[in-house]
């Protein structure tokens, strides 16, 4: 639950409690008002009724007094008139007492309090007594009226005392009822005050409950917001002290959770920055050290440069001297190059002769190849002849064997023929061996001829290659002659250039003087640079100390 939702829920709860309390108070006020209205209305009505009864009783007394007076004076008209008035008055009194009795009975049934109910009951009884007393009074007066009609003055006066007594009893009863009403009014005021006290007490209690609930809601909301905030405060305090190695709890989806995650991201970014910062500072320190070393090396090299400039000045003097020698040598070279051009013309004619000789050699080698091919064909023919001779020797061998067989068949007479046959066999064997030798030798000859053919072809190819090389040599010598001519021109340009070079070297000498002055300035600048690098090293070491403050 987010913080805004929590705060809104707290406000809603407080508002609901106040609303309920207000409604309850209104209801209680209405209740009190209703009770007061009821009590006041009933009491006023009862008071009015009792006044009307009293008024009716008073008129009844006046009418009866007038009646008695008229009787005594003998005024009959006055008697009739007073009788009629008295009847109307007593009817009204009886009717008012009965109405009030019914009203009191009704009030008793639905009274506000029990006390008032009892009072209303008492009033009912008192009114009932009053009604009875009034009825007794009426009976007495009717008796007096009868006496009046009879002109019995004694009877009229005799009954007068009962009438007065009964009337007094009636009045006393009505007065008791009025007393009872006064008590009931008092009790009604007490009941109203009780209702008011009860309402006030319940409203005050409700107020306390609402205050307690509001305090609880406030405390809960505060705790749920302030505790994570305290954790974040401590975390931010650690970050401020340079401890970037911790993270805070970032739970939940509310604003505090998002705040925690954002803080963690922020610390991650700070950690990355601090790491890079530290690495960069270390690099800066190393670089500053290197710069310091470089400036010192530079100072040394500037010194060397000064010495080198001195040596260069000496060398330039030597170059000036050697430039003159170069001019002399170049003129000598020009003369020699012209001689070389003449020699190369002789070389050209000699190379032409060589090319012609190569052509002759090639023709002769081709003739030799042709002859060797003819020889190869001849040796083929010799091979055929040798095959024939071999065949002949084979046949001679068989013939000698057959001759030996015939000699053996001839017996003793054939012995000399057997010797001739053996010699023939010997000859045939020798011929066979000779043929074998000749064939072997002929094989060697053919192999020799084949290799000769190949060698001759190789010779022809080499002669052609030699011809090509001779032509290339011819072209090269022509090129050489042209180059020599160009070289002569080049050397003439060299002589001219050397003269210009002498002028340039004088300018170089002046420039070297300037360089020496510049080198001295550079040396002083390098010392300043060295000082600056030293200061920079101090700064970078201080910076490294600062970055060490962060714990990662």
């Amino acid at each position, binding site marked *: 639950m987010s913080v805004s939702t929590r705060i809104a829920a707290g406000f809603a709860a407080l508002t609901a409690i106040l609303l309920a309390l207000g409604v309850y108070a209104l209801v209680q006020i209405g209740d009190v008002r209703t009770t007061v209205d009821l009590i006041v209305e009933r009491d006023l009505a009862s008071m009015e009724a009792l006044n009307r009864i009293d008024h009716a009783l008073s008129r009844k007394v006046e009418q009866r007094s007038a009646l008695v007076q008229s009787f005594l004076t003998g005024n009959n008209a006055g008697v009739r008139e007073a009788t009629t008035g008295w009847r109307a008055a007593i009817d009204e009194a009886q009717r008012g007492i009965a109405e009030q009795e019914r009203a009191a009975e009704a009030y008793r049934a639905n009274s506000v309090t029990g006390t008032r109910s009892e009072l209303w009951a008492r009033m009912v009884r008192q009114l009932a007594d009053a009604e009875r007393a009034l009825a007794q009074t009426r009976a007495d007066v009717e008796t007096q009226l009868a006496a009046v009609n009879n002109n019995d003055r004694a009877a009229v006066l005799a009954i007068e005392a009962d009438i007065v007594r009964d009337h007094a009893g009636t009045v006393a009863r009505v007065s008791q009822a009025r007393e009872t009403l006064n008590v009931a009014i008092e009790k009604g005021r007490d009941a109203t005050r009780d209702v008011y006290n009860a309402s006030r007490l319940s409203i005050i209690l409700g107020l306390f409950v609402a205050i307690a609930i509001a305090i609880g809601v406030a405390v809960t909301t505060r705790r749920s917001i302030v505790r994570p905030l305290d954790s974040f405060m401590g975390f931010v305090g650690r970050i401020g002290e340079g401890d970037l190695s911790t993270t805070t709890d970032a739970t939940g989806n509310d604003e505090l959770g998002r705040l925690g995650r954002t803080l963690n991201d922020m610390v991650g970014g700070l950690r990355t920055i601090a790491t890079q910062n530290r690495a960069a500072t270390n690099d800066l320190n190393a670089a500053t050290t290197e710069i310091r070393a470089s400036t010192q090396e530079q100072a040394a090299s500037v010194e060397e440069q000064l010495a080198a400039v001195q040596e260069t000045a000496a060398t330039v003097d030597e170059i000036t001297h050697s430039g003159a020698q170069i001019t002399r040598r170049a003129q000598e070279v020009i003369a020699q190059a012209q001689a070389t051009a003449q020699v190369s013309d002789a070389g050209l004619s000699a190379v032409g002769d060589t090319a012609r000789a190569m052509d002759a050699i090639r023709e002769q080698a081709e003739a030799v190849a042709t002859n060797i091919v003819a020889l190869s064909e001849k040796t083929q023919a010799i091979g055929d002849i040798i095959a024939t001779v071999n065949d002949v020797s084979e046949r001679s061998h*068989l013939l000698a064997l*057959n001759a*030996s*067989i015939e000699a053996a*068949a001839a017996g003793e007479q054939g012995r*000399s023929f*057997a*010797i*001739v046959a053996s*010699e023939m066999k010997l000859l045939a064997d020798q011929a066979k061996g000779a043929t074998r030798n000749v064939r072997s030798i002929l094989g060697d000859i053919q192999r020799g001829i084949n290799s000769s053919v190949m060698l001759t072809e190789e010779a022809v190819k080499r002669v052609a290659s030699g011809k090509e090389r001779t032509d290339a040599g011819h072209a090269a010598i022509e090129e050489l002659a042209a180059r020599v001519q160009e070289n002569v021109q080049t050397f003439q340009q060299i002589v001219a250039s050397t003269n210009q070079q002498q002028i340039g070297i004088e300018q170089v000498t002046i420039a070297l003087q300037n360089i020496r002055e510049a080198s001295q300035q550079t040396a002083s600048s390098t010392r300043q640079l060295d000082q600056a690098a030293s200061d920079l090293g101090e700064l970078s070491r201080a910076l490294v100390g600062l970055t060490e403050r962060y714990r990662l």
Partner: protein
Amino acid sequence: MSAPPIVADGLDADAIAAILLARQRALSRPPADERAQETLLAFDLGGVTHGLPIDCVRSVAPLPKVTRLPHAPPALLGLVAWRGTVVNLFALAQVLDRDSSGPAAMIVLRHDTPRIALAVDTLAGVVTVPQDDTPPTLTRLVAEGDARLTRVDPALLIETLLPSRLQEG
């Protein structure tokens, strides 16, 4: 073939006389051994030198074209034409159970009904060996000086070659 003039060209009269004298001496020399001598026709068969008594040989010749016969026995190579007659040609290597490298010549025996020729690898020459009187076998090893050769008995060979039916016919 006419008389070879090549041999006669390089010889003068003295050389011819010397040759004739040597022949005369060789003819007049008595036999070295007292025992009876036998002349054999030597030939090669599968790298082994064999000998056949020259008495039973009619002639030798290069191997002509051979006409093969259907249903012939394995030893009979076929028929050849020789001096206008038909001759039976036998493979002597098959008979003697040798490894022949290919016959190139043939030996015609003195036997008329039927005529018999033997196919051999090469013909070597004529040798003279002492004769002994051991009982005849088909092949026998004989020695003449340093050389040794296998003598083939012709009569037993012909018996081996020709069944009785063929000998009668």
